[in-house]
């Protein structure tokens, strides 16, 4: 089975992340980026399925030049080929526009016939978690989201979704789109051989024109929602120090009670 995995290049959460002051979008140039950790689970799941059943794994990403690193990492892990949609007009795109571009890229990469699309459950920067559902809608595919287990068989995909109070087993007919959680597997590290092999794997670089998308459908100016203002949280205030003069326990209880912890 041929599998498409959508991945995102995000600012490293360990680094000092911020926003562009001019347009309130995420600053992607000023910090080190990496393949979103949540997408590594999607890549791993696709690799396992492809190894078990044969078939190729294609990784698709959208983003500026440095987003190519997310594709590279997935290829180093073992994916077969990559697609990088890179166009200045994409800057500031919201989830509906992102899903539109992904949908067209997936159609082009699979001649209009994706068999299985896997995504992470959310990005680690925007963390909206809505792109998988929008993408499934645009591709006309059944969507099964937040999978913590995934099995294929008889033209169906079956997933387990762990909720707070219960566990659901859901199946959908193929082709389908599945988003996976960080519980589904343990993503592999690339190997030295994987790093060297990745250099020889094909990566398509497409613009909006290649996908037949009008620039007026995407980008910051055409977003359905807009970040109006960003204010940094005030630094945490100095904690309150209570001196124990024999009544420390009482004071602690009073402190907690005042905040409705007791």
């Amino acid at each position, binding site marked *: 089975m041929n599998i498409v995995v959508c991945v995102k290049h995000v600012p490293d959460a360990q680094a000092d992340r911020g926003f562009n002051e001019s347009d309130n979008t995420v600053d992607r140039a000023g910090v080190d980026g990496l393949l979103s950790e949540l997408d590594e689970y999607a890549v791993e799941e696709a690799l396992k399925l492809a190894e078990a059943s044969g078939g190729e794994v294609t990784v698709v990403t959208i983003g500026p030049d440095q987003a190519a690193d997310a594709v590279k990492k997935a290829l*180093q892990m073992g994916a077969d080929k990559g697609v990088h949609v890179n166009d200045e007009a994409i800057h500031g795109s919201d989830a509906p526009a992102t899903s539109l571009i992904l949908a067209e890229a997936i159609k082009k990469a699979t001649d209009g016939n994706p068999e299985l699309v896997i995504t992470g459950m959310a990005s680690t920067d925007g963390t909206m978690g809505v792109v998988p559902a929008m993408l499934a809608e645009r591709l006309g595919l059944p969507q099964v989201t937040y999978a913590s287990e995934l099995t294929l068989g008889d033209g169906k995909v079956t997933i387990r979704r762990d909720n707070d109070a219960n566990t659901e087993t859901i199946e959908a007919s193929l082709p389908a789109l599945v988003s996976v959680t960080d519980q589904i597997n343990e993503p592999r*590290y690339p190997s030295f051989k994987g*790093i060297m092999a990745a250099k020889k794997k094909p990566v398509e670089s497409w613009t909006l024109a290649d996908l037949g998308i009008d620039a007026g459908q995407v980008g910051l100016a055409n977003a359905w929602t807009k970040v109006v203002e960003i204010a940094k949280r005030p630094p945490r205030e100095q904690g309150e120090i209570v001196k124990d003069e024999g009544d420390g326990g009482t004071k602690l209880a009073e402190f907690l009670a005042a905040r409705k912890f007791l």
Partner: protein
Amino acid sequence: MFELSQDHQDFRALVRQFAAEEVEPHVAQWDRDSHFPTDLVPRMGDLGLFGLVVPEAFGGSLEDSDGGSFTNLCIAIEELGYVDQSIGITLSAGVGLGINPILTYGTAEQKQRFLPDLVAGRALAGFGLTEPDAGSDAGATRTRATLDGAEWTVNGAKAFITNSGTDITSVVTVTARTGEGADGRPEISAIMIPSGTPGFTVEAPYHKLGWHISDTHGLTFDNCRVPQENLLGERGAGFKQFLKTLDDGRIAISALALGMIRRMLDESVAYSKTRTAFGKPIGINQGVAFPIADLAVMAETATVLTYKAAWLKDEQEAGRRSVAEVKKAAAIAKLYTSEAAVTATRIATQVFGGNGFMEEYPIARFYRDAKILEIGEGTSEVQRMVIGRHLGLPQG
């Protein structure tokens, strides 16, 4: 010349991530418990760390390296050493002392028998040269092997042998006297002793100042019998064979020490920004800032010396540089970097003040781990001897 290739940098990023995620969270505990993490070895094998200098036929990736395989190995040792020196030396010894002698001198059969498991990290191998009474003076070897029918009978003892007693150690190659040459000098040969051979005893682990996580044992051989075909390489060439692996080992120790210096620099910079005294971060004081600046100079110098030596080694493998050039560069890199590493841990401990003396902080572990770098793979004195010889100074 002053930047590693993109491939090297990509590989460095991989080892750095692995070390940060899979090693760092556990090392303090492993160090306290003197625990060798056997399970980590096959995971290092999955990354390809043991196969960097090994041909594909035995599971390695030598052919993929584009002529920079030894440099890649040094990168891996440096990055592991940045997080923990014991894990770094486990790789360094696993490849340099375990795999390399078999790869270089083994018969097709010996290679096929041992290398695939060693490269995959399913097994480790040791090399026994040092004896209780013979260190750098390798010619003073007392361990004896006598050919008795179709078998060698080995008697003697080895000291400080890395990776020799882990649960997955498959074989230890030892040097032994197998006779005397016409000039009366001992004939030294290398013989492979598989783990579990009767008469081969792995002694209790040493109680060491540092490298607590690394597996180190004394070995004794009491009428230990192995088949004649366990001879590794030519009979009588054991010493010469060993000398050829020395330069690799020295550059590897230099890479390990470099990882330590970089760690001391990063830790010191971070601490001096956040730790306050008299209402200000301590880094504001020149008394703190100047030694940290010295650490940066050491890290830079050590980087250049180490990777120049590694590059020369790769170039020598390709037939473009001489063995003598590598020897000199290896001794210079090892001498400078190991001595700088000891100084670096002393500086970092001073920056950390009382906290530097506490095991809750990583500095104390590195402080304990540093000293051996000036001793293993040839002491600083031996390196100076080698450098002096290459300068053409009169030899006694």
